[in-house]
């Protein structure tokens, strides 16, 4: 009845249809995503875009102003994770098994980075993901990622 306001994705009621725009408030206000300033940008049936605003604190090479890879991995981990739930249609707990990031070029200092995560295959236990990070033109990405998630409590399908 008067359920308390959910504070994390874990508190969502069973059967909740996953909506990345609404769910973003859980993953982007608290914790590491909140500290990074990651925000919802756009989504489709099997993809989610999140935005990471550039700031001085996130720089990995002081002389160049180029972002560290940690924030880029965090952005892509979050975007691809949400793409999995979006394709599955519901939230379920899962763990990142692995992520590979190829850096095609340096992100331009000062520009917001958009992370586009896509779930290209869902099996009962494993979700296969890929994505790009870009700061201006999706056809000229900063980074390309691939990886897998595993459902930790129950199955995706």
């Amino acid at each position: 009845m008067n359920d308390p306001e959910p504070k994390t994705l874990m508190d969502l009621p069973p059967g909740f249809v996953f909506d990345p725009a609404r769910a973003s408030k859980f993953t982007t206000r608290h914790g590491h995503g909140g500290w990074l300033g990651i925000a919802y940008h756009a989504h489709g049936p099997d993809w989610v875009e999140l935005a990471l605003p550039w700031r001085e604190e996130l720089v990995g090479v002081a002389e160049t102003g180029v972002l560290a890879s940690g924030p880029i991995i965090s952005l892509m981990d979050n975007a691809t994770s949400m793409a999995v739930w979006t394709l599955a249609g519901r939230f379920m707990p899962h763990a990142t098994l692995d992520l590979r990031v190829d850096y095609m070029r340096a992100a331009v200092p000062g520009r917001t980075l958009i992370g586009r995560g896509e779930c290209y295959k869902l099996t009962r236990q494993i979700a296969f993901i890929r994505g790009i990070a870009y700061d201006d033109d999706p056809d000229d990405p900063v980074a390309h990622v691939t990886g897998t998630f595993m459902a930790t409590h129950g199955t995706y399908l």
Partner: protein
Amino acid sequence: MDTDLPPYAHALGITIDHVAGENPVLSMDFGERVQGRPGFLHGGALSGLMEMAAVAALRAELARRGESANLKPVNVQVEFMRGGTEQRTFAAGRVTRAGRRVALVNAECWQDDPAKPIALAQMKILLSPGD
């Protein structure tokens, strides 16, 4: 020595905990800013810590050789093996191969037991002549 770490490391509270042999061991305390799902470290923060450890190990190796180089990451592969819990995390890198143009560096991170790493990373880094 901490001054060698970039702004990202300072912002996350990553510091050089100690030097084992000639290799720096980095640490990061648990807190809201590195938390993913409640009670656990965010994989991106772990990856960030391992990248800092990998780069620190490579810089230490180049310094031993009396070389200086500008580093440009090519790619990184991260394996998450255990959830990181609410405690201090350590990370160290190991230079597997550093030639003149490219270096392959492995890194791992652990919490209470170095024999039970919670995540591994492998980075490829381009080297170009330093100033």
